[in-house]
């Protein structure tokens, strides 16, 4: 498959004040082309309407306290947000979706006294769910294919889930996990304890999961160890125990699993002696130690004095590696914004035609958006491709050249939403 970089529209629209807001047209909105003809709009609207007539929408708790925002197909390619709406009941909300058929649907993460007040001040903010956004755009590394990108961001999502459950102690049923329909995942933490957290406090949570500002000495600290007769007392690095949980526990698990893996390999001595201060003798002793379950049990408890004396910074190096590899990259401004609008789970993403999909936390690992978030059929649809395009959907690699052709409905809709094709043959 050819390398194609696909960037559906941003998962969030953040607008601070105006009733209508125009999102810059470079690469966002419907795919970044400057046209979407009337026929295509009509077709997409029809298909979205069919979906909304029987869709299962996941409404946020305290529906009546939320602000809503929608972007309609009609003004495309301009993306005009109609916001400051509110709904009193689930029926009203569903009727709106079926009747108006928006291209994008959002609700506020915040709870307001007057959600439909025309400006933010008059809404009277009362609290907000804690939100995390993991977006392929914010991950380090080179651009990949859409499918690879989504796999990559799923790994981050799994890391975040571990932090939420084990470090923050958030109950499974307080975490709403959602595929955004575009490039990533959203997590909504819905619990009274987090509702009134302010932006700076939410930023601290982001720093925690991303390891930002992490200072090794608070976790590893140096421990003074008295020397034997005739030997000087030495400073050995402290070592966290698995039982401590949180970052210390995570670092303990990482270092032990890293060293267990390395010492199993044939070139273990070479790898170990590459660490500053480790010679062949120490390396051999480490290999022995990591093949001894009793030693490993000691290490898990944070007891490294059972190991041969190590005059090396190996634990410091591995601990920083642990922070790099096990931290989760989340989009900070999203979490810090306590008045943001977020995609409605169960709605469709107008930049991809895929479903903003609510997931069971336990199913995240086996979730494949390019199959599992696809809602349209296999029925053939004729369309005119404007630019060559590749994507892997429903387990098939699709690569299309310019020109008129037939594609399964789900792929045709995807291409039209992305702005890579128009409906029909001219």
């Amino acid at each position, binding site marked *: 498959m050819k390398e194609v970089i696909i960037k559906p529209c941003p998962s969030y629209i953040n607008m601070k004040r105006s009733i209508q807001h125009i999102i810059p047209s470079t690469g966002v909105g419907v795919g970044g082309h400057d046209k979407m003809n009337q026929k295509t709009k009509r077709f997409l609207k029809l298909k979205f309407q069919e979906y909304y007539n029987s869709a299962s929408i996941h409404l946020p708790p305290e529906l009546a306290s939320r602000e809503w925002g929608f972007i309609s197909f009609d003004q495309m390619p301009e993306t005009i947000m109609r916001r400051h709406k509110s709904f009193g009941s689930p029926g009203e909300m569903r009727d709106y979706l079926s009747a108006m058929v928006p291209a994008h649907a959002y609700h506020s993460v915040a709870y307001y006294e007057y959600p439909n007040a025309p400006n933010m001040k008059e809404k009277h903010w009362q609290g907000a769910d804690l939100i995390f956004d993991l977006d392929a755009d914010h991950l380090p590394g080179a651009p990949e294919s859409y499918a690879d990108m989504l796999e990559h961001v799923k790994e981050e999502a799994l890391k975040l889930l571990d932090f939420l459950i084990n470090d*923050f102690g958030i109950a499974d049923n307080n975490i709403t996990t959602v595929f955004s329909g575009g490039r990533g995942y959203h997590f909504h933490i819905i619990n009274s304890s987090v509702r009134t*957290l302010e932006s700076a*406090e939410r930023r*601290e*949570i982001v720093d925690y999961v991303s390891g*930002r500002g992490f*200072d090794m000495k608070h*976790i590893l600290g140096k421990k003074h160890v008295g020397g034997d007769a005739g030997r000087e007392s030495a400073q050995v690095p402290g070592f966290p125990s698995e039982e401590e949980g949180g970052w210390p526990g995570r670092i303990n698990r990482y270092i032990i699993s890293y060293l267990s893996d390395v010492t199993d390999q044939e070139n273990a001595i070479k790898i170990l002696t590459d660490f500053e201060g480790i010679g062949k003798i120490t390396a051999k002793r480490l290999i022995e130690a990591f093949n001894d379950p009793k030693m490993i049990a000691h290490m898990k408890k944070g007891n490294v004095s059972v190991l041969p004396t190590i005059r090396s910074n190996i634990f410091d190096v591995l601990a920083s590696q642990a922070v790099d590899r096990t931290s989760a990259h989340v989009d900070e401004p999203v979490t810090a914004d306590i008045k943001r609008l977020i995609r409605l789970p169960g709605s469709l993403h107008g930049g991809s035609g895929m479903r903003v999909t609510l997931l069971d936390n336990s199913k995240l690992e086996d979730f494949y958006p390019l199959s599992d978030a696809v809602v349209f059929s296999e029925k053939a649809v004729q369309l005119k491709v404007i630019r060559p395009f590749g994507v892997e959907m429903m387990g098939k690699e699709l690569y299309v050249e310019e020109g008129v052709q037939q594609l399964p409905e789900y792929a045709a809709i995807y291409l039209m939403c992305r702005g890579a094709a128009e409906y029909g043959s001219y």
Partner: protein
Amino acid sequence: MENIELALYPFVSEASRYVDSLNFSPDRLITSRALESARIRGTDRVIQSLAGNIEKPSFVASDEGKVLTELLSYPFARILVSCIDDQYLTRRYALAEAKASYELLKKESLDLLRYLGEDFSISATTDDTHLNLHFTDYLKLASPLKELEWKLVNRRMDHGHVRIAKENYARLLQEAIRKRILNGLPINVPPHMCGQCEDNLTVIRDILQKQKDDFDIGGFREVDNELFPPCIVHAIGNVRNGINLAHSMRFAKTSFLVAVGMSVNEVVDLFNVSPDFDEEKTRYQIEHIAGSSGTQYTPPSCSTMKTYGNCQGADELCKRIQHPLTYYRRKVWFKKRDGSRNTIKKDA
């Protein structure tokens, strides 16, 4: 709590309930001869706060009278601070009260700390050596503390609970105490009552004025951009060269410039050369930082600047300060000092 503890921590709700139950009206507090010692101590509290350190007495069980004096001196001190109603004094006072409590709290039992925490709606549990509190409570208490060690990421947290040593918990309570005292001031004191305290107020006003003159408090007179710290100079240079600033640096720069006294217009003009300059949006952001929504944001400290990679070109003076504003303040002071020296030389 025992009466002694109420006297040492007079800002807890239990202490104010106790004082209410004693039926000392503010009038009596101000005029009663029997309460002269409480008024003297109350005045001392305020004077000591200006010097930065309120001394707390130590009591023995038989000191009932002293305990009462100490307890009643607190509401009197608040009356004095409220009559003067000067922002600098109020802040200094709240900080000094909180600091003095911290010094005592460090040595108190875990149980007393836990009890005090409950007065601030924090429910902590204790084990032999530590307190455990929910991360949301931790964040609310710790977010004003900017040193890296207070970052949640540098704390021990497991299943939502942050484990904290006694001294650290006392430090967090200091912050909560400071906020409570600050938010509770000024109280509404009728002018005639302030009039009755005039002697005490004059003493405080004089010291306050002298202190303000010495430190040149009351804002920067005019903005002198030659005295900006290297990080801000670097950021301004970047903007001028068309390099986009990271969000955190934009915030740091804007909040700094507003804090040293630049107007929103002047700051907007500085950004006017950004490649993605959008005047309306920029103006909105700057107005927001400058306090249009009610909070004026203070620029981040040096340690925060370092965390986000925004500390650039640190010089010798940077090593001695912890905040970009302090850098500027010192430079302004140096310049003034050198300026007056030159004048003296010329005169000679």
